[in-house]
């Protein structure tokens, strides 16, 4: 097996508790080297939700996050920080995106 064809990582998928308490395990996903997520198992009633979420993030060529205004910008302006799929920081960006906008995380 060549180094470039590293096997995908398998992660549990947790739904983050909004009101505290433990996060709930709702599925299992493969994380491929190109940052693509594939649902490999999970609670039947969460499967559609996870497929939808994974479809959303897989469709993005890069992931961005909002940041504070650049110097000189208006007080309430927001800027952007973007991470491409080939960036080593992509997984962290993906985790943040999943957490912030879908309330799920890989673990």
């Amino acid at each position: 097996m060549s180094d470039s064809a590293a096997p995908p990582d398998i992660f549990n998928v947790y739904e983050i508790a909004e009101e505290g308490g433990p996060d709930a395990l709702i599925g299992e996903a493969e994380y491929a080297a190109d940052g693509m997520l594939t649902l490999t198992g999970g609670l039947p009633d969460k499967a559609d939700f996870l497929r939808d979420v994974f479809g959303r993030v897989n469709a993005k060529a890069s992931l961005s996050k909002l940041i504070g205004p650049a110097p000189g910008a208006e007080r309430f302006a927001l800027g952007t920080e973007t991470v491409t799929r080939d960036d080593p920081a992509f997984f962290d960006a993906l985790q943040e995106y999943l957490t912030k906008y879908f309330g799920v995380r890989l673990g």
Partner: protein
Amino acid sequence: MSGLLETLGLKRKQPPAPVPPPDPKAQVIMIKAAGASAKARTAGVTLNGRRDALRKEIEDLAIAKQYQQAEAKLTEFERHVDGGVAWAGRAKELANTRTQAEQLQQTGDRKAEGMLKALAQVEVEANALRFDNAGKLLDGTKAAVEKRVPEWRQVRLHNNEMAKLKPRLDNVTGPGGIPGRGDGGHALQNEWQAFEAALADCPANVTDTIAVDAYKLVFHREALTKALDALANAYGKKTFLPGDAADEQWGWSEREYKARRTQLSSLLQKAKYVKPLTAELEEAVAEFAAMDTGGATWVEMLTKLDAKAAKAQQLLRMAERAQPLPDEQKFFAAYGKISEWVKTAAANDDTDDQTKNAKTEFNNQWGAFREILDSWDDDRFTRCLEKLPALKVAADAVMKARRDAALRTVDALNAPSASSPSGGPPVPASNAEKNARAVKAAIGDPPPAGAIPPAVLKSLPADKKIAILDALKAGGTLVPFNDNASDSAQQAARDNPRRKAQRAVYAAMDLDERFVEAEEIDRRKVLDALLQDKEELKKARDEWPLLGQDDRKKVLEKLLKAHCDGMGFKAPANGIKFEDQDASTNGDYLPGGDVIRINPKSRIYDDFELQVDLLFHENSHNWQGQLVNRLDPSHPNPLTPAEDPPYTQALMFQSNNAGAEIIPPAEDYASYQKQPWEDHSWSTGPKTARMLMKGLAT
């Protein structure tokens, strides 16, 4: 041990010089033993962590795909067991049947007797079938597990050894252990290092793979218990059954019961032993697939496991020579719970008289406590345990005195000038005096002398924090941070004590909990309104990059309206405007223009989730501005204390409204996000966006 004591804030004094003077060799051994103890404790924590992680993983496995088939089998198995249990409940009824049959036999009613016996026989046969089916399922599970018996047998012994070692390891590595007391210290250190090395070299998956199968057995344990109970219960009732056929049935059941019980008990025993010793289960599953095809890997890994077990056993034999003192574990457990509180009480150079008095009492308690703890008396932990309640009371008193002092400090910010003539009318404090008092209250002068401790500042009511901010700004000379200034000018502004103090107060100023709770409820209204058009919004979400500006605007306006209606504030007078800006800016809210601007040239223009977050973030700034405006008594709908929330939160927004009150990102990014206006927007934007995204995705 010294490591733990430091962790708990108890820096050990050197032990009192013993009489006669200590043997230098003994001292060396003792010091090394202490080092070994710390290592042992670390390893103990690691093992505990691995065990806890595994337990969680095992629980998590209930939904993993590998086990769905096992779950289905379990369900079927339990159905059979339930049948058996139900039948066992019928035993009493059938016992009555037997009594009736005997009575009928005595009265000569042979036909009725025959019918009742036949009925009982049907029940017996049905039950036998149920247990036969259950037995097959159990056999299947057993067979699946024993498929790997060759590997299992090799590893089982080692794991059993490790499992037996674990409690002993806990004894000597837990909080109460004092390995090295006695004659084993020096050797213990070396051996422990060797053990740690062996441990590091031994992949966790040796034991983890066992847990995969062990889990299946543990998973069936409850059902098995029910089955065994049901069988035992039914077997105990066998005497009521007449006839050779029934006896034969029960003979079969008895044999099966005993044989299966022996087999399964053995397997469960294995499961019990290996369960606490495992860690990353997913990794183990993957590793096992590879190892299963190559015996060499197993041999190699077993060799390492051998070393691990042998070293551990050797170490434990030595460590066990030193048994923990009575009450030692109890003491560390109890002290661990209050040590942070006590450390906080012990910290700080308090200048306030009441706090100093409380501190004196605390110091007395603390000194007595330390004296006992630092002694080498055998009963020191017992005596320290007795001292803990009084120490906690003394720490409580210090913390209360500090909070009272902080409140007095804040109340004195605007007190008459210290330079007021004695006997004469008080002279109002100058703005400079107020500024200086506020700086001292927030960060100390020089820092941290005289400052309200951060934890205490955080605990003060919002109006007290606002009072400090007001005193900082008294005279209007607080200099704004200019992010276009030179680097040196920016650094000077950043280091300005008053700006530092302002940042310290913002850091301690959390959003009003009641406001947040009310917003949480209203956020649900926002979602409910939007999900009325779920399909439309979902379509817009999916086609977002393809939508033209007009269509995007309609979607965002729908979100804006729902947000404003749900939360109870007005949309910006000039709504949403698409306006080309520099690509580094996504959009903003302009209070002067009362408009939310979206930049079509921004990098996130095609990202639906970020656009939604941006909109809710910016519209929250619109809301914050409206709340501040309502604090003006001349406002048509003035906000008063009677309407709280949001009154208190509005006061916080007002304290961070304009000019020098604002912290730009360039001054300090964390403080930028923590100032009240941003704290709220950075929190509510993603929360509201997330609620909508989850609603659309389900």
